[in-house]
């Protein structure tokens, strides 16, 4: 079980961030997107390779109006 943006998901351990982005309709080269895994930045270069652990908390963030 992986927690995606605060929601329990049916994603399993071993999935990559790339798979998560695909689920969100986001390409790997999406502009203005950042990913945090368990409170740390996951650099774009690792999105396709980094395998998520069981119970990982993934935050997929983008630009929003503000400030």
């Amino acid at each position: 079980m992986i927690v995606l943006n605060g929601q329990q998901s049916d994603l399993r351990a071993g999935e990559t961030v790339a798979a998560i982005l695909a689920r969100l309709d986001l390409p790997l080269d999406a502009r203005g997107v950042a990913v945090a895994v368990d409170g740390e930045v996951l650099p774009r270069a690792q999105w396709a390779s980094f395998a998520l652990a069981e119970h990982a908390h993934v935050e997929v963030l983008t630009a929003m109006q503000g400030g």
Partner: protein
Amino acid sequence: MMAGMHETIDTPASAAANGVAGGAAPASPAVAGGDELTIAGRTLRSRLLLGTGGFPSLALLAEAIAASGCELVTVALRRVDPAARGSLIDVLSDAGVELLPNTAGCHTARDAVLTARLAREAFATDWIKLEVIGDEDTLLPDAPELLRAAEQLVDDGFVVLPYTTDDPVLARRLADIGCAAVMPLGSPIGSGMGIRNPYNIALIRERVSVPVVLDAGIGTASDAALAMELGCDAVLAASAISRAQDPVRMAAAMRAAVQAGRLARTAGRIPRRLYATASTPDEGLPDLGPV
């Protein structure tokens, strides 16, 4: 007007607020051009920064950006919402503006630092408008957490623009740490209360050597003009524009106000006096006969 009453008092702050001392005011004012603002090596022709929050639509935001003439706009970082996809990034890119990501919503140094790192990853910029909020109702900054976050982000190589209170000591501490500018509030975010302590804003301008950007509290154009007259190097307006009845018209008003205030500051205003000073000489006054 209350602001600047201290200008009749002979202190270094009053002289600075008058724009007649301190050597900070350029000799050739904005009217001649060449009055650009430089922050951390980046040159900005517009001294108005725009917050993108609160605009009812992206189309209106784009129009307001054009009317404001701004070159730097803030953006926040939030969870991707698969349902709502109108691309803010595309709109801002088309508008040709640079992004200043913020850490809005962060209450601890840890969260603010992580958010800044995520923003750097998302937007490929080292610039960060650092906000660390200490109170939900007033959205006032949490000074100890702000300093902690600023120190860490400066160490990480960020160009840090902290949203701070109008406390001259805190502003100087932030500048001493290595922040590229300081962004004191005029009054609480979105309050439209204007500049509640113009004396402190003038003091901050006097006490730090980095640019001072008045952030938060601007309600209407005269507030922005006052900020510039007090010596601020730029003004950031968000709600004052985005929540105005006609945001595009208000964006144009803010643009004109910032230019007018900057011109007035560099022109050097006259001191305030309690009594009149005749502007017409008495010499040559005719004798019009007995009453």
